[in-house]
């Protein structure tokens, strides 16, 4: 009996191990851009930049290339770390070249193919144009695009890699940016437990299910499934930041946009602390505390947070918080943070 039990466990371990291996092999194999079945149509313009293996691999190499920064010390991957769901773990605001600090939290490189604007303020509307921001920003990479191209042209490998990806050794802004986009659109997080439930491959526990119901009542109007953001700009009532960041207003100069920021996704919270545009909350409980008890009026606070009688926030009881956190935990996607295809 005892022997049987041990064998049983062994078999189970073997089965598990082989399952896991299969999954890793599966995700590590390049199959082009594939829309997860529970996702909507992507927003990215694949017609002008189809993802190819060579383009994607070049984009990955460029993503981890420190030559994109002035003194060759900072790569995209420095602040967008895969194991932290492509965010900068532990940093409230971006920490760039020469230990300079930016004013906002590094957002995740995750499911960007479905986004129609980029950065916390949506100042960039084409993913291809996005890398210019960190490359040229004083606090991030402090380099010029012109100089990046020079460095890549002088590199022993890049001309050949560009030729493989684009048909000739010419290295241009367009090719550099499109290769980076090919890598970024492949950073898809769609293998969380939530996704498997949506694809009828598994089911929620009772606790997770209760959390899901609460989520749909209290959170889903902004954190829309399956991206867990409706991609809009809102003031979530956390109050004006230490640096007075006006958010979306900088882009539109519209008073109604002052202190609004893009609704962040709730996927991979386990890996991506700290939270919100300036990283002021280091734990999920701190965020939930703010919503449930700590909210005050601030200019342009989102109407969904208005509880009437000059009170703001979302009522979440202690019991509800347990369920909500159980549900949010199903949005963590281990495959995404470990997928070798996306690793340096």
């Amino acid at each position, binding site marked *: 009996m005892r022997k049987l039990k041990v064998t049983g466990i062994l078999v189970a371990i073997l089965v598990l191990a082989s399952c896991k291996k299969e999954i890793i092999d599966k995700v590590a194999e390049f199959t082009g851009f594939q829309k997860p079945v529970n996702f909507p149509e992507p927003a990215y*313009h694949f017609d*002008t930049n189809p993802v190819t293996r060579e383009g994607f691999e070049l984009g990955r190499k460029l993503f981890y290339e420190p030559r994109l920064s002035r003194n060759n010390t900072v790569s995209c991957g420095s602040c967008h770390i895969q194991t932290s769901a492509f965010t900068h773990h532990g940093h409230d605001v971006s920490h760039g070249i020469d230990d300079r600090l930016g004013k906002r939290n590094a957002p995740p490189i995750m499911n960007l193919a479905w986004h*129609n*604007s980029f*950065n916390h303020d*949506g*100042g*960039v*509307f*084409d993913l*291809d*144009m996005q890398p*210019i*921001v960190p*490359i*040229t*920003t004083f606090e991030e990479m402090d380099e*010029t*695009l*012109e*100089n*990046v*191209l020079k460095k890549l042209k002088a590199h022993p490998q890049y001309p050949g890699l560009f030729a493989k990806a684009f048909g000739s050794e010419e290295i*241009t*802004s*367009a090719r550099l*940016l*499109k290769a980076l986009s090919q890598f970024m659109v492949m950073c898809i997080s769609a293998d969380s437990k939530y996704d498997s439930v949506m694809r009828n491959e598994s089911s929620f526990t009772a606790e997770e299910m209760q959390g899901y119901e609460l989520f749909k009542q209290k959170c889903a109007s902004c954190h829309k499934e399956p991206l867990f953001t409706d991609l809009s700009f809102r003031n979530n009532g956390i109050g004006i930041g230490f640096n007075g960041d006006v958010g979306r207003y*900088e*882009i*539109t*100069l*519209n008073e109604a*946009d002052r202190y609004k920021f893009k609704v962040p996704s709730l996927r991979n919270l386990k890996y991506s602390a700290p939270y919100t545009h300036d990283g002021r909350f280091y734990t999920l409980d701190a965020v939930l505390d703010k919503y449930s008890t700590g909210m005050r009026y601030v200019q342009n606070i989102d109407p969904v947070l208005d509880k009437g009688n000059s009170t703001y926030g979302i009522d979440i009881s202690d019991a509800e918080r347990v369920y909500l956190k159980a549900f949010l935990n199903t949005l963590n996607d281990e495959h995404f943070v470990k997928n070798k295809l996306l690793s340096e």
Partner: protein
Amino acid sequence: MAGLLFLASCKKEGKEPEYNQNELAPLSVEFDNIVGGTNLYLNATTYTNAAGEDYTVSLLQYYVSNIKVYKADGTEYVVPQDSSYFLIKEGDQASGSALVNVPEGDYARLVFTLGVDSLRSTMDIDKRTGVLDPASGMDNGMYWGWNSGYIFLKMEGLSAAAPVDGSGQNKFRYHIGGFGGYSAPTINNIKEISIDLNQAGVAKVRKGRTSNIHLMVDIGKVMSGTTTVSIAANPTVMFSDFSTKIAANYAAMFSHDHTEN
């Protein structure tokens, strides 16, 4: 559907007769930057604005695009857009004029955009070549990364009226852009400039020679126009509501001096 598209494109071509590109003749538009009655010299001559502030100019560049010419009878020729973007840079001889090709004829009116149209400002990166390439001349960058779009006119200089900045200089900086916004409307500083050539000489464009429309561009008007811009009050103007006042000022800085046929 393909038939419809074909028809649609035919119809469009009907409005703008298709010219044999080999049959076109060169036309240049020269942008001669001045301040009032004097030539513009970078980092040298001191000028005075309407607010009574002295200043020198260290950097001046602007985009000219979407060039169109009209004959006296109103016939329009639109330069193909891919060949119609120019960055005029003071101090760079090669970037002082816009050279285009148009059908032979006598042209009585010139129209161009000061800035970069919204369509091109939102176009695929493949279509942003030459002076629109964000990698071209980023030292004096004419592209805003964080708020994706081009800077239409950039003017910088020194003035005792400007407060000392982080670099220890009394510098003023006017970076004017804004194509109207992509997903939400915002400031639009695109200016279409129309110039009547009848008074100072129509452009007689013929093959085998280059007709040159010589424009005077009074940079002093950036600060002195409908709005008197004080360097002391506004040493730095970039993406802000006030930039529309400066753009309205500079829309009036072009005048036709003569045409060399």
